[in-house]
Each structure stands twice: as C-alpha cells, then as structure tokens.
C-alpha cells in the first residue's frame, strides 16, 4: 500500500490477505485515458471514487527500455494479444495509465468528418467539433500538446516526410504529448524520464490528489446489478509476480454509479461476462482496429529507427477514398524484437533482414475501418473467461491494403530507398515503379502478410437507437441508469487518427455530465 496524492490510497491486489470490500460513490474500471479522466473529474467534483486497474503500477524507474521487460509487463496478454487466427498482432496497454503509458505520443483531435459520420449514420447527437473544442483545449494544456516540432523528426520519419512531399501528398507534423522530451525513442516501453505526459503522471495523480483510491493488480470480473442499476464491481486480486489470482476477492460497491474504461476489447468482454445488455447481440460487435500494414525499405545510409521520437510525421492524403476504405501513413519504431516479429521467414532468411535493422525504415498504413459497409471484428468470451477477438479480412480490406502498400512503396522509392521489401510471407522485393505491380498479384490474407493494431475501438458503440447501439451519446448504457463507458469502445467507427486525445476529450465531456449528487 502506498500514497501518491494528498488523499487517495494505492492498493495492489497482492497486498490483500483477505477478501476486501469497500463502498464508494463511483467505481471506475481501467486507468487509461478514459478511466483516469473520469476518476479525476468525478473525484474533483467531490465524489468518493475507486479506480481499478488490472495491470501493475510501474514508474519511470522501472522503464528500462528493454523489450524483454516492457511487453510482458506493460501490454495486454504479456504482449501476446492477437486476433483469434493470429493474423493481427494487438498492441494494447495493461498497466497504470493504460495505453497512454506505452503509446507513441501522437495526438490528434477527432476529425470533423468522423464526428459527422457518427451523427448522420449512428445517431450520435451533440458530439461535434464545437462541443468537444473546450475539452480538447483543456486536455492539450494538461498533456503539453503543442504544435508539431520539426526537431522531433528522426530519420525514420524524415523518409516519410521526404517521399510524401516529393509526391505532393502533403505530409504533416504530428503533435506530441511530451514535455522536456529527450527524443530517446522508447515511448512504447514507458518513458524513463517522465517526459511523456501519460495518464500515469497526469490524470491518475490528479485523481489521487482529489481523493480517489487506486486499486492495481485487480482484474474486474463482474458488474453486479439490481434492476436498472449497477451496484458493485467484483474483481479478483492478482499476484503481480505470477500474474495469477491470489484467491482474494475485491468487491467495490458503487452508491452512485460505475464507469467502465477497460478499453475496447476488455470493456465489452466485462459486460458480456456480466450479462449486461448482452441480449441485444450488439456487445463486442463492430470492433475496429485501424488494421495496420507495415512496409520496410532499406537505404544506403543508417536510419536507426530505434532512436528518436517514434512518430512525428503523418500523411492523410488517402484518408478519403470515396466508397473504398481509406488509410493514412505514419511510421513505426524499429526495435529488435518488434521488427523481428514483423519480418517474415525464419533462419538465415530472417537473419539477413535482422542484420540490416539499422538501415531499415518502416512506414505503416492504418486502414480507417468502419466508415463504409465493413463491420470490423467481434469480441467474445469463452466459458473459461478467456477473451477472444475475431477480425475477418474482407475484400475491401485487402483492396485498401494493396493500394496502401503500393503507395507506401512509392513514398519510399521517392525518398531514395535502395530496396523496398514487403512483409508478405514470402516477401516481395521492389526496386522501381514497375516492380510495384507485384503487390496486386500477391496473395494477401490471414497470416499471408504481417498486420498489427495499436488502436482498438468500438464494441460498445454509442448511438441514438438502443436497437443499434450500446450506450447513448452521453456514454450512458441503454439498459442501466448508472453505468457509463468512457473509453474507445464507444466509438461507432474507427477514428481515422490516433485515438488518445479523442478518448481523453470525450471522457471529459461524459464525466462532466454524470450526476454526482
């Protein structure tokens, strides 16, 4: 047990020698951007709040910049989360601060076009740029999100900038949530300098300072309900050294309400386990991932994509492709393990890719799923409690991925790449424009090409109609009067930009509307 702020206590699941029961006004599940924000707002308004986190609380002193430590300790399923058929690797935080502790700091406001789509097609009323603007402004100030900075552009990002600019595709600098950044390049493993303004060092301490209690290493298993009200969150305490239940239960009664922010995938799973709203058949449906297609290029000079801010350049030139799935370009950091998992093949073939790590540049295309007829993936829960995610790749995804690969190759060739090597299995070698035609012919599908996702959204969609949505436009569950959701699971579609700032701002708006008296 320890204390961070003036009032709130920090309790770890392993500390409980017996079952633990406590009563609060609100119980918030998940300490990422949605949960930490809700806890800070509610506690700041005088409510007695418990913030429950499945992961452990680590600080900058723990962040050793080694992948062998970071992924098992800071990511869902110890870094092994993936879709059912392993075709899409899921990178998702699981620690105090949630995804913000391990994200790459990219900060975008929700595009107006996405908000307009939510209003017109999903009946989300009152959520437009003007309504969200004050929330964005407050969050941007708290997280030190300023204008994009050219000094943040490392060589990995510079190639994206150069290639896209040469083609007239208007690259842009990414705004980052950092203060005093030393540009080490290890944002995805936790910032060892506390330069990244993650929830771990902002909204979680704000919540604690306002009196909220933080329960770490406690896995929410069930929401207890009574008619149209959520009454308690039942969690199992975890032994952090083994990541196994200790056998102790933590039961947190909620006098006024429950706020869920366990993240897309885990929030719908918790509701499914609790049989809350599962009769509608909507829970877990329309889960979106920004399915991400990487492309590697090799240059004659060292790129050293393992150092420097992971993301500082984006290109949204292909975000709107009419009736076809759009996509946008960013870059990914190139650390040994993450790169090795992305490179296809094994043995000597794989070794030759690994040997050129320092000369590799990685551009990624993020598919903007859910804006057309594509239905995304589905979260389910097995009888033994295991959470599963299926995400079938449809023809529309394949068309977008192939188009994105071709255009990424053009960017890399324009930037001076000696060779572009796709992550098809087996890979394609592209040295000039005429080689790009291979992409259209190469098989693309589950485990035929490396795919990953660092942005999970949907599964508990908000909307105006209970027949087609799980929560209303204020984040309140259609079936329960005192249960709100403030994470990315409520997005009716993917965003088309990196999600952290949207989650913070929408959570702030929702939490401010929750009655505390």
């Amino acid at each position: 047990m320890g204390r961070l702020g003036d009032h709130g206590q920090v309790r770890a699941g392993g500390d409980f020698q017996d079952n633990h029961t406590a009563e609060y006004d609100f119980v918030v599940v998940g300490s990422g951007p949605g949960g930490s924000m809700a806890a800070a707002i509610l506690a700041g308004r005088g409510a007695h709040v418990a913030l429950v986190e499945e992961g452990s609380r680590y600080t900058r002193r723990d962040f050793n910049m080694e992948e062998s430590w970071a992924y098992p300790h800071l990511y869902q399923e110890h870094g092994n989360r993936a879709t059912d058929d392993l075709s899409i690797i899921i990178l998702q935080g699981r620690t105090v601060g949630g995804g913000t502790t391990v994200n790459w700091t990219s900060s975008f406001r929700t595009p107006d076009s996405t908000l307009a789509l939510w209003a017109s097609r999903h009946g989300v009323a009152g959520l437009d740029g003007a309504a969200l603007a004050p929330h964005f402004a407050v969050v941007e100030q708290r997280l030190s999100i300023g204008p994009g900075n050219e000094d943040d552009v490392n060589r990995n990002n510079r190639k994206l900038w150069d290639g896209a600019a040469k083609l007239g595709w208007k690259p842009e600098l990414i705004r980052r949530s950092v203060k005093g950044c030393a540009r080490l390049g290890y944002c995805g493993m936790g910032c060892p300098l506390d330069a990244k303004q993650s929830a771990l060092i902002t909204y979680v301490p704000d919540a604690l300072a306002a009196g909220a209690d933080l329960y770490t290493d406690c896995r929410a298993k069930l929401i207890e309900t009574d008619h149209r009200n959520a009454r308690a969150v039942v969690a199992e305490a975890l032994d952090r050294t083994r990541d196994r239940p200790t056998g102790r239960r933590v039961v947190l009664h909620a006098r006024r309400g429950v706020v869920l922010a366990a993240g897309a995938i885990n929030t719908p799973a918790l509701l499914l386990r609790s049989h809350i709203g599962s009769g509608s058949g909507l829970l877990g449906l329309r889960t979106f991932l920004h399915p991400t297609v990487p492309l590697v290029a090799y240059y004659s000079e060292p790129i050293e994509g393992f150092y420097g801010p992971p993301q500082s350049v984006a290109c949204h030139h292909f975000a709107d492709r009419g009736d076809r799935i759009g996509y946008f370009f960013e870059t990914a950091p190139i650390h040994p393990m993450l790169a090795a998992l992305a490179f296809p093949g094994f043995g000597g073939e794989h070794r030759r890719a690994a040997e050129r790590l320092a000369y590799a540049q990685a551009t990624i295309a993020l598919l903007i799923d859910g804006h057309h007829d594509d239905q995304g993936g589905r979260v389910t829960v097995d009888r033994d409690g295991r959470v599963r995610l299926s995400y079938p790749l449809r023809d529309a995804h394949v068309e977008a991925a192939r188009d994105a690969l071709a255009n990424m190759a053009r960017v890399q060739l324009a930037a001076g790449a000696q060779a572009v090597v796709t992550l098809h299995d087996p890979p394609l070698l592209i040295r000039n424009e005429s080689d790009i035609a291979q992409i259209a012919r190469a098989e693309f599908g589950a485990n035929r090409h490396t795919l990953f996702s660092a942005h999970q959204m949907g599964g508990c969609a908000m909307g105006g109609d209970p027949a087609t949505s799980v929560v209303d436009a204020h984040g309140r569950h259609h079936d329960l009067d005192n249960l709100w959701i403030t994470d990315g699971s409520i997005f009716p579609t993917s965003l088309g930009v990196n999600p952290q700032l949207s989650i913070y701002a929408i959570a702030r708006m929702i939490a401010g509307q929750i009655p505390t008296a």
Partner: protein
Amino acid sequence: MSSDASAGATPASPPRRGFLKKGILGAALLFVGGAIPIALRGGIDRARPRGALRLFTPREYAIFAAIAARIVPGDAAPAAAGPGPSPAWPTAEALDCAGKADALMAQAHPSVGAELRQLLHLFESGVGGVFTNLQVSPFTRLAPTEMDARLTAWRTSHLTLLRSGYQALKRLAQATYYSSPEVYPLMGYPGPPVVPQVPA
C-alpha cells in the same frame, strides 16, 4: 469467474483438442492424428531444461527447443535460406529460448498455455504433414533441412490453421531470441541509451 487453479502446475499429459477446435479443418486434423498414432511417438529430446519448468513438460521443452533452433539464426542451415549460418549468432540453446518461452507462457491464460502445448505435440507429430508435404516423422527426428521443410510447409499452407500454428511458433521463438541483448550488436543495434537519473 475463470478458474486458474491449475495454473503453474506442470501437467502430466498433453492437453487435448483446444488448438484444434477450429471447425471442419481442425476436426480433420484430429481424425488424421488419431489414425496415425505411430507418428505421435518416438521423438528425441535433445535439449534438457536448465531449471524447473512452469508450463512445459520436459518433452515439450525439447520440442520447442528443436523448433526454435531452426527458427532463429544461430543454427540455421544453408539449404533453405541461401548463405550459411554466421557463427557469430548465438544459438537458441545458448539463449535458452525454450526456458524463456516456458516462463513467458506460464503467465498466459491457462487455455492459451494448453493450446500452445497441444500445438507443440501436433507439430512434432507431423500430422499436419498429411495436408502439406506428406512428411509425418517426428520433427525432433528429422534432419535440419527436413525440419526447415516442415516449417515451410506450415508457413505456406493453404490451411489458415497451419499458418496460424507456424506464426505462433515463429513469434514465440523470435521474441525470446531477439529481445536478448546478446544479439543486439549483430543487428547493428547499440542498445538502449544511458539516461540521466531524474530526481524523484
């Protein structure tokens, strides 16, 4: 509530069916597996665990060690991959990839660990060979080039189930190997920078 009561205990017998519950193809693999029991016996345990195992049995440890030895560069044979292995790259055994995989996957959901163990037995048995290259001998008895052929057969199979199995083995072996500081210099990676201590 899920029951994790068995977590951490070393199981006595191979798990059944979990990995194969994938519809018709899984059922077909299970049927074929039952029809050729000879292929399920007679592997060779070349690798021995360095310490107490948390998930694998010694047999499963040996199977994974044999697979990892082919997947990572240190033992890579030249036949399937062009130029010969570089002696500078450490072997999977030197970095104890199997021991690291056991420790990592012991923390996974019990059903995930059970599926991995079943996958190891399936891959060792060569049951998948019936659908790929007709090679059904135990993996641990194969020559290095034959081992690579089995990996390639799964990697390029038209069955999603086998490609998924290949990916599971590939990722686990490579994750344990390439996150080891011993290989950083060989990749041209200087390692994490030294950062100044920030006062609390």
